[in-house]
């Protein structure tokens, strides 16, 4: 299927916060959330529409590769968006956010959009991290924030799509160099090379990206 852009995402966060479940929940709606089934994937792709344009999201889970510095480094560098996930029922996963964020900021493209996600919002009774704390952390670090539940699918859709919207806006503003695939953005086959800029971007934004 053709698309205007392909955005590559990575999912980061402590183990057990439900990254792969979120991933599956978003990329494949055929898997209905059920209480007695925990299921996830390490890779998924899905098409969404923003501003009337088909955009393909490719999401890569980085779990299990933290031991290798070269791998984390490269993953961050190759992504346009990152979902930083913690578990609202485990305070320690929230406490580790700073480390994750430092890592992300250090290795990633400075334009990478990071979304903070407090997962397992269905388990409100066992909540250890208040929603406000997540909001404050996100505000302090300039992230988008949302609480989600891979179990009930609450906000999962929004989390991924809002991140995509932000990336899309940055492309329109000419912040992202879309011709450089290292940024985690690829122009789809339907965009001929003679017209790499999206029409909405116009000549203004192409100049903007040219001089940066």
């Amino acid at each position, binding site marked *: 299927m053709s698309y205007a852009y392909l955005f590559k995402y990575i999912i980061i966060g402590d183990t057990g916060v439900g990254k792969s479940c979120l991933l599956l929940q978003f990329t494949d709606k055929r898997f209905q959330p059920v209480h007695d089934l925990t299921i996830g994937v390490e890779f998924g792709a899905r098409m969404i529409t923003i501003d009337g344009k088909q955009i393909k999201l490719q999401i890569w889970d980085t779990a*299990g590769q933290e031991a290798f510095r070269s791998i984390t480094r490269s993953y961050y560098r190759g992504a346009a968006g990152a979902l930083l996930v913690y578990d609202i029922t485990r305070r320690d996963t929230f406490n580790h956010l700073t480390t994750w964020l430092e890592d992300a900021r250090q290795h990633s493209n400075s334009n990478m959009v990071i979304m903070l996600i407090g997962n397992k919002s269905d388990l409100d009774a066992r909540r250890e991290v208040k929603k406000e704390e997540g909001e404050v952390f996100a505000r302090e670090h300039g992230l988008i924030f949302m609480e989600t539940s891979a179990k009930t699918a609450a906000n999962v859709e929004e989390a991924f799509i809002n991140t995509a919207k932000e990336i899309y806006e940055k492309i329109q503003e000419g912040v992202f160099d879309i011709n450089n695939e290292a940024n985690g953005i690829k122009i789809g086959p339907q965009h001929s090379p003679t017209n790499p800029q999206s029409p909405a971007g116009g000549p203004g934004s192409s100049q903007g990206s040219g001089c940066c």
Partner: protein
Amino acid sequence: MFRSKSWFGGGLWKPKNPHSLDHLKYLYNVLSKNQTVNEHNRGLLVETLRSIAEILIWGDQNDSTVFDFFLEKNMLSFFLKIMKQKCGSYVCVQLLQTLNILFENIRNETSLYYLLSNNHVNSIIVHKFDFSDEEVMAYYISFLKTLSLKLNSHTIHFFYNEHTNDFPLYTEAIKFFNNSESMVRIAVRTLTLNVYKVDDKSMLKFIRDKTAAPYFTNLVWFIGNHVLELDVCIRGNSQYEALPRLADLVAEHLDHLHYLNDILLLEIDDLNKVLTDHLLHRLLIPLYVTSLDKASAIQGKSSPKVSSILALFLLSQVFLIMTHPPLVRVLANIILNGNEAVFELKDDIVSNPIINSTSTPTSTDEDRANEEIPSASTEENPTAHNFLQTPDRNSKSSSHEDCSSPDMLARKADSLRLLIKDEGNLTDLSRRPFLSSIFDSLETSENDYSALFSLCLLQALVKNKGIHADLLDRLFHGGAEKERGTGKEEDLAEECITHTKSRYNGQLVDRLISIIAHTVKYESKVRVVTLQLAYTLLLKTVMKEGDKSCMGDHHLAAIEGAREENILLLQNYYKSDEMFLEIFEDEYLEMSTGKVQNVEQLLMDSHLLLPPAGSPLTGIAFDKRLPCGEVERSRRAMRVYFILRKLSLTLRNEKEKYLPLTNTQTCVNIDDNLDLTNSDIQSCIVITRDTKLRRFLVIDIVQLILVEPSPKRMGWGVVKFVGFLQDIEVMGDKDDSRCLHITVKSSPTNLRGSKTKTPLLSAKFMFDDHIRCMAAKQRLIKGKLKSRQRKLHMIARLLDLTGSSPSPPQKLRHHSRRPLVRSDRPLYNPIGKALPGLAMAVVSETQPGNRKNSRDQSPAVASVSKNTTHQDEEIPLGTIHSKSTNPGGTSHNGPQPASSSSSRRNSCNSSTSSSSAISNPHQSSNSAAQNPSGLHLKFPSGNSSNLSANKINPRRFKFQ
């Protein structure tokens, strides 16, 4: 969506519960009836395959019979059958997703073993999918990566077949190591690392014997090509256009090095040997090291070269990232001791495949001197370093030649050892082309383009933990003591300056000092960052046992000479630049709190690979480019000053006493409790947009302080706000003469606070009446002026400009300020002396009365009490005043020479006259206004007692 109901016969109806054994049985039935994929059942098959994943995982978590059924019916074989038909990406992707889900989610180990046991998985791995399809490629590589995460010493046997020497998971994956998709490349790298991590001897032997040489050859070739592309980017004409690509390539090179380092860190000896060997002989030595030596580049060997600047840059990265001793030791040894012969020998032996025999980390000193040079195994390419040639693509599959023969190794290693031994007899830099070219690169008379990276490389060598400390010691210090015989130690020793206690490499220090000398020139082409590195390296070279310097006198003199030149330059800016103080403090803040540029971060900055830029328009940080315009030149001169000052102090083992200009430790902080007895305090209402607070304004020598009365102790105040007088702006209010608009900007003085855009405080201050308001305004303005002057004096002193100044500002400060004692300190008593505003304030209130009835005290009292609504605050005012002016008054025998006191009086006069002119247009004060300095002259010595008596009186009355 899918017509998946009863018409499939067999009486198997789709069960209502999708998570049950029955449902799996139903799906089995569907699969067995649709073994051929066609247009019509495609959708049905996809949904069936998807559901199978879901049920199996549900079964794994809830019902073990589900999995038994799956295995019993050998359902995985259906997968293969479907795959082998040309089923299209739609079905393929689903198959791969199902497999991904299976292997990702199965927790039951037995289930996992069963899944892997019948070799279906390996058949799936080797299946030729349509990899041109982006999605298929991504799912496929994720599947392999997921499998690699399941590898351990048990599961490895399902993937690696010892008898057939087959390891499809690994060999199929590395075919994609250079895929155009970065995520695919990363997945391959992850997989390889996961494989190497598994502790299985025969598997690792397979990896080393059958795949390592070709894989690493390709990898190294790939890196070499990137480096050549990098070189093209740098040499190109449109350098700034190529900047994104350049940044990308630099990051890519770092990625490569980190990956190689991650492999080396796994410490698989056999593998590391092959990798080290390849790296050294196919990349690092033939490309990086040879490119260092400009002369050998001219010799015109066929092998490609990069610019020496890039070579320095790349080698710095290598030494910063890699610490594998056999690799970095050999490399460091070649760079520091080697010569071209290394490559000539290389060319001779190039046709004979041998492997390395790197010395062990525990090698003795002799061994170290004769560090064995491993040589490349070169079975594919005729020349080891021809990166432009496409490597043998088939090498991966045709990798059955043995690339390592211990016999041959021994022979070649011997010849290499001989070579390095010969080199041991060299006596000067001229026979060390690489070291000498590094040293030559330190030359900065034209610019510091290469010097920066040369310094980076030396710094990286220092930081590298894998290199023998002794080798570095000889580089920087010329060895601990002179040794006989070996020659090497001797020749280095010759280069060393022998000091009374210890030695250091004089040649290196000469060059570093020459960098400093070039830095201080007006039109200098040396960037601040270069100076900073030179500074660090210089200290590394000459500092012994922590804080003692062994630098020779002539070197010390050279540094001081450079400092003087820098100071001369700064003196000009000091005189000409009105903003000098602010910039000076800002730069100091930047230098002391700014992020310390470590070499690692420096070497991530691709901008530096382009010739030094001079314009802020490039977006390059100030310290990494040349200054643009006079303001930046003066800023730069300041930075140089701070660095050289630190260097000079460190070398002399002295402590910094004069910087920062404001000693924040003696400043008042918010929430401090201050004893304000006898202090000058003004009541006011501070109105901001949101708040309206009653506060008391205290003006210290450097700070503006707002307090509120302490609830605990009478006469004490709790600090609610502090700002530096230096940063204030005061404006009167057009509509309300009692009001002032005061803005306190955030200060460069405040080391703790980061620079912010918003001012610390922007508020309207409402005083009790317009006289107090005027008085406050005067005092604030004077305070600001004084505070700036005081600091300028200090700078003048630092810049040796103090010749004419009678009283060094430092002394004044020490007089007026004591170390902050939180509890009982007679805080503002001594300050009054330095505060012109204090005298002014009282005089303005009392003088009208004094003038009229110099003997009659009661009118004066009346006038005061009339104006005073807050008597409490007035009391200490008067007290201070009396104390501070008394000495002046009694010794008032004509004009005083002391500048400080006379200036105080002047300010006293001017403020007096202006305020009294408003409050009471008295004759004498009017005349004083016209002639401010004349006022004091009008008080003959006889009147001085009168004056002082009058000044004291109001206070006494208030007490009564």
